[in-house]
């Protein structure tokens, strides 16, 4: 019941889950973060895709991330008229460069705009926003 109440209240856009990304989102529900590695050529990729963009192989390995990385760049948003975000201004959007080398778009949380710096070490926090969706966000490393 508590979860249902939370789902009703959550008004930010939710991702569409499908065949190629469901394992990734399900891992997030277990509070685990993965990237993909091609089983044929070894190329790393994020976001999840059904095939390798380098060699087009469908042989996909899932690599579990340490959940640690550094802020590559960020912005503190003071104006966004979209529902869900206009109530939570200001918020920090960032690209985090994972220790595994890939950059992912996310939010910095537990972090003031003054605290946010490029190069700052961060760690993943899992935000269970609905019963089906958990988001990977990042906070300053502790």
């Amino acid at each position, binding site marked *: 019941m508590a979860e249902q109440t939370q789902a009703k209240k959550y008004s*930010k*856009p*939710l*991702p*569409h889950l*499908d065949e*190629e*990304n469901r394992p990734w989102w399900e891992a997030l529900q277990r509070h685990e973060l993965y*990237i993909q590695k091609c089983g044929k050529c070894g*190329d*790393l*990729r*994020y*976001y999840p*895709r059904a095939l390798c*963009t380098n060699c087009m192989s469908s042989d996909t390995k899932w690599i579990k991330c340490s959940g640690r990385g550094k802020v*590559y*760049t*960020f*912005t*503190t*948003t*003071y*104006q*966004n*008229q*979209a529902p*869900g*975000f206009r109530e*939570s201004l200001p*918020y920090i*959007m*960032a*690209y985090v460069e994972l220790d595994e*080398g*890939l*950059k*992912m*778009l*996310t*939010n910095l949380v537990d972090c003031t*705009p003054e605290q946010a710096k*490029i*190069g700052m070490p961060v760690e993943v926090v899992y935000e269970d*926003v609905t019963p089906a*969706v958990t*988001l990977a*966000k990042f906070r300053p490393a502790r």
Partner: protein
Amino acid sequence: MSLSRKTAVAGVFEHPTRFAPDKTLFQIMAESVRGALDDAGLTIKDVNGLCTTGIGMSGMGIVGFCDYLNLTPNFVDSTSIGGSSFVAHTAHAAAAIHAGLCDVCVVVYGSTAASSRFAIGTGGGGAGGGAGDPCDQYEIPFGPTTVGSYAMVAQRHMHDYGTTPQQLAEIAVTMRLHASMNPAAKYRDPITVEDVLASRIISSPLHLLDCCIISDGGGALVITSAERARDLKKKPVYILGAGETVRHAARGQRDFLEIAAAQSGRLAFERAGVAHKDIDMAMIYDSFTITVLVTLENLGFCKRGEGGAFVSGGRLRFDGEFPINTDGGGLSSNHPGMRGIFLVIEATKQLRGECGPRQVKDCKIALAHGTGGTLGTRHSGATLILSNQ
């Protein structure tokens, strides 16, 4: 096979409106087509090619606009890659004419972005066009906006190269100076660097006055063969070369300060057979001040990291060492959601010597570069090099 000087811009028209709450975009587009045909000395009966796209029309809007104007062209192109689309359309029209697919091609845009109250930079879920593509699913939960996407590029540029808010602000100040000499510009009162820095932060480090305005508007171009253009009303402006491409997150491996302009610019220069020193003025898509700075670097007018110095000291003024955006740009003149068409219109007017007080002296070769979409997530770039000789 080189396209250089085989085709020309024969007519241009910028719709004077900046606010048209009771016009449809088709009306604005049709009035723009009429204006560009009048400028060329051609009639609607001569038109057998059409390129258009827009933010206010449906995906098949080009067919609807043919319905409105009772056109049945031999060539249609509705490439939709954001604000740069019309720079790309110009190149596509040139290639189509050179290949014999059509003879006279109109490129047109119209929009009521302001009066329809589109929250272009700070609304919606997706940073780019939509929110339903697979790539959007990993962005929309985190609140991307168009401004935010460009802001992340600015933040990284400042971090890596010490680029300052003052340097970015000077770009906005220069555009406003140019707008003050353009009677049709929406904002014409001069501003200072201090005004830009005192305006509120929309998405750090970008201030309100680092962002383009939102207006209504439209415009059109008439493209035809160089041979035919020489017999028309106005002096032809020849298409020398063009290039286009896209940049995106590159499966998580992107260098975000390398943008589409690096590739589209290189292609355009190679195909035009001209060098950077030959460019007398440029129209650089100024959705945001940072867009101008990184575009100039990526086009190769200065080295990466040197953009801050390059845009400083009045160098971008109409009477400076490297004049850009003499119409006042998207930052001050008009930005009806997309503004690629105005880049080609103003470059053409400069090459014809029609720009009055803001005319660049001895302008023989001009470059137009459009950026579409969102620089920090996914964007397109289209470069065009034009000459009056």
